[in-house]
């Protein structure tokens, strides 16, 4: 072990640290890194890995950050104890990022001057290229096996059971014995080198645990695609855009599995790659108008293009489900980074007085759950439903509770008037509020030969869908739509509150992918004697509990991943909250928010307000 450190003690940690891999995009590192993450989980230790990748297929720097946490903190924590620096391009900044006392793993084939290292970290050099060049002749093999080789070396360095990794490789290449042998061989080369040259394990160790339990490991996009299958979607129309593309890919592949007619191989679903996002949402609206469950998946630029149609669907009262996997925007580059910056664009999408229902899942479990539920909501409310996730949740695999489904549950298709009801003479007014909840009845095209047909259009109509430019008809309609939005309040998932260990005058509101980092941040704060109650918002329009929560506190931090504080804006606007009581905690550089960032911001804000931590108060 070439320890350059003289001043700083090497960090000692078991099952609780951050490893970061710095790689070159397109070098095949992604699957090796994932293998390593799975190896740690195979040891029973929870891991939260995140890709930080460029808008590029090959050549630019890419990072893979792994939060290892026995306690199950699955957000980004911030900081890094072990850097696996495989990219000369980003070397300096990668080296600089290692925590004092941390570790730097690198390919030592090429000798680097001492000045490129740091005195306060432990350097672990393995001549990966040299070993590869000796062992392999094919350039592609040299690259791929180099990746497996560092996995082998790290397996030894962190004290991971080699058998666990062997098993994963055997699973991955099942049926291809040659590949299994070759990969295991490369793994062993790395493992042996590290074991021979360093005292293994180093200060960072993985120890067997049962922290992972029953949890599953999947990304949010796959979960949304599966949710759409379970939710009964039969039509998907889309246009490719990162980071949402894999929602549709997942839907298609789950449909091939679950929705192929076993008798004739025919499809009980239709997926159309449209010419653009306008056409995608148009197809969704057409299919939903015609009684199928339909959805699209997109990201910010697609949301922008769909605006006119959102208005049409809102006013014509056509169900639609939109998965918006948010990213930074516009253009290319930041778009492969994560953000929660489309809240306002979705909440008030389109021209005219529109307002839309939004759902905020926190992890793949909720992506599945809300994804399926969105179709019931769209049918019940006859309006577009936006499921807002983001790149971090959508494209990274996350550990989450296993999916569940109640077989007794039937799809709720909402208020659809049947041919029998029409025949029996039931009064049908397409835009008539018969139940006082603002939700009218609809009929599906083709229902009855002479009753229940109507001409769908925007707002220019009366309660019976007849053409009308009369002001009173317009007002009746708008007031009914407001009532419908009130009804939606009780239908969207309720917020989840968490009380601090001690009474507090301060609260924090957050949503979506901020959730796991928030959970750890609250514990970090509590450790400093700062107690904050928290509320996770799961839907818009805001349930009454959200307003009550704010009113119970002197001030509430609104933690989100955008620059303008969009949830805060919505709260101010929709819940008529005094802006002074809502303190912004904003993270928007394109990387997922970290627990340390949140706790730091909240602690700073409270000390600026000269709030004495509760612990000190008690002590004095």
């Amino acid at each position, binding site marked *: 072990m070439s320890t350059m450190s003289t001043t700083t003690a090497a960090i000692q940690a078991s099952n609780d640290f951050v490893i970061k891999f710095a790689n070159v995009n397109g070098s095949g590192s992604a699957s090796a890194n994932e293998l390593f993450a799975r190896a740690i989980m195979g040891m029973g230790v929870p891991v939260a890995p995140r890709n930080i990748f460029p808008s590029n297929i090959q050549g630019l720097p890419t990072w893979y950050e792994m939060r290892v946490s026995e306690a199950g903190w699955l957000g980004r924590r911030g900081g890094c104890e072990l850097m696996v620096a495989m990219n000369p391009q980003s070397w300096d900044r990668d080296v600089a990022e290692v925590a004092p006392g941390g570790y730097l793993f690198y390919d030592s084939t090429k000798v680097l001057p001492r000045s490129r290292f740091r005195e306060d970290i432990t350097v672990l050099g393995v001549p990966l290229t040299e070993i590869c060049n000796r062992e392999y002749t094919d350039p592609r093999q040299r690259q791929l096996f180099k990746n497996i080789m560092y996995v082998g070396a790290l397996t030894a360095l962190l004290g991971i059971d080699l058998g666990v990794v062997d098993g994963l490789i055997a699973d991955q290449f099942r049926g291809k014995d040659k590949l299994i042998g070759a990969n295991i061989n490369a793994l062993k080369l790395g493992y042996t080198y590290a074991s021979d040259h360093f005292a293994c394990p180093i200060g960072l160790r993985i120890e067997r645990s049962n922290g992972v339990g029953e949890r599953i490991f999947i990304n949010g996009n796959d979960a949304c695609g599966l949710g759409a299958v379970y939710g009964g979607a039969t039509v998907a129309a889309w246009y490719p855009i990162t980071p949402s593309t894999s929602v549709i890919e997942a839907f298609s592949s789950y449909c091939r599995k679950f929705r192929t007619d076993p008798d004739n191989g025919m499809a009980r679903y239709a997926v159309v790659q449209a010419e653009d996002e306008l056409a995608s949402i148009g197809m969704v609206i*057409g299919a939903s108008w015609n009684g199928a469950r339909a959805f699209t998946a997109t990201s910010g630029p697609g949301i922008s293009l769909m605006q006119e149609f959102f208005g049409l669907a809102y006013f014509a009262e056509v169900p639609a489900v939109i998965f918006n996997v948010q990213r930074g925007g516009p253009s290319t580059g930041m778009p492969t980074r994560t953000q929660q910056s489309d809240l306002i664009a979705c909440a008030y999408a389109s021209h005219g007085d529109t307002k839309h229902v939004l759902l905020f899942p926190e992890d793949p479990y909720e992506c599945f759950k809300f994804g399926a539920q969105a179709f019931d909501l769209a049918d019940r409310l006859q309006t577009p439903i936006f499921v807002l996730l983001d790149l971090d949740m959508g494209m990274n695999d996350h550990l989450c509770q296993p999916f569940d489904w109640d077989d007794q549950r039937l799809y709720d298709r909402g208020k659809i008037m049947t041919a029998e009801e029409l025949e029996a003479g039931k009064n049908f007014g397409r835009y008539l509020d018969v139940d006082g909840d603002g939700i009218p009845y609809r009929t599906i095209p083709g229902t009855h030969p002479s009753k229940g047909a109507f001409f769908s259009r925007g707002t220019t109509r009366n309660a019976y869908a007849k053409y009308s430019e009369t002001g009173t008809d317009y007002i009746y309609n708008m007031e009914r739509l407001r009532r419908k939005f009130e009804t939606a309040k009780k239908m969207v998932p309720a917020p989840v509150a968490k009380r601090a260990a001690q009474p507090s005058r301060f609260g924090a509101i957050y949503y979506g992918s901020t959730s796991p980092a928030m959970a750890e941040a609250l514990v970090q704060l509590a450790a400093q004697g700062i107690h904050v109650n928290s509320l996770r918002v799961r839907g818009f329009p805001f349930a009454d509990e959200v307003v009550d929560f704010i009113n119970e506190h002197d001030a509430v931090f609104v933690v989100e991943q955008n620059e303008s504080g969009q949830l805060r804006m919505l709260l101010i606007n929709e819940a008529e909250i005094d802006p002074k009581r809502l303190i912004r905690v904003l993270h928007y550089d394109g990387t997922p928010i970290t627990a340390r960032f949140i706790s730091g911001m909240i602690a700073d804000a409270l000390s600026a307000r000269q709030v004495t931590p509760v612990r000190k108060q008690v002590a004095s």
Partner: protein
Amino acid sequence: MTFLAKPNLLRPDTPRNTLGYTRRDYEGAISTLCAGCGHDSISAAVVQACFDLDIEPHRVAKLSGIGCSSKTPDYFLGASHGFNTTHGRMPSVLTGAALANRELIYLGVSGDGDSASIGIGQFAHAMRRGVNMTYLVENNGVYGLTKGQFSATADRGSKSKRGVVNSETPIDLAALALQLGATYVARSFSGDKEQLIPLIKGALRHLGSALIDVISPCVTFNNHAGSTKSYDFVREHNDAVNRLDVILPRDKISASYPPGSLRRIVQHDGSVLHLRKIDKDYDPSDRVGAMNYLQERHVLGEIVTGLLYVDSSAEDLHRHLNTVEMPLNKLQDDTLCPGSKALEALNASLRSS
């Protein structure tokens, strides 16, 4: 369960089709278009075509974009569901509707601004996808509803009411549809219902994307001397290549045709297209020939009408997607939802320790 429409109280000698419907059963609300507008004649032709074909009105879904033309679906087939969508985007909404229920008949109504200007992208892609629909463009060369600006089908040299001469190259939607793979392409004139009605009937019975570009003069903004979309101009320059009769399997063929003057095309659903030749060399099964012919005649300032192209063995989008026969909107929970057992198996495959 099937429900029957209640018969209207009409004089006993009112003509009825085989299903017992009268023409009035195919009508809609009173038109609010200008008196003499070509679009109203097209609505009347749709009514007649559906009556003649014994279509149950509620089995039609009519969709449109925005414009005077796109308002017309309110004025026919009052017992059908209709959707007045957004400007230029009817094709995508229709595509989605057609995906949801393959059993209905889809009628798309659009204008030249709606299809050739703002909506040309969606127009093109619906044609190339083979959406099973009848797509009517009510083509007047102007934006009627926004008061007479040129549209993208206005001919170069055509003069506006205010005397402005159009200098931009026109888009020929029929020519474009041919290039894009539409499988039934026709052009007609709102002032010639003998030609138009059979063309609509043939299209309604066609499996695949059928486009009819109907020149439909705007009496208010584009019917003056110097316009190439006026009643007079179209009458003078109409170069019809053929005349169509649509023969249903139930019909007895009574007319007799001189030898060599008729072409018989059997469509997917058994309906037969009888094409009486006007131009004896014109071959409506030759896509490239049709494209060339249109270009040649366009240069001569002529408006080619008739059934320009038909592919009687066409396939539609559902065939391409291999969707089940049962309409997707009729599939129920038991076939759609894989259930908790499948989910448990999936969970097991996603476990990591």
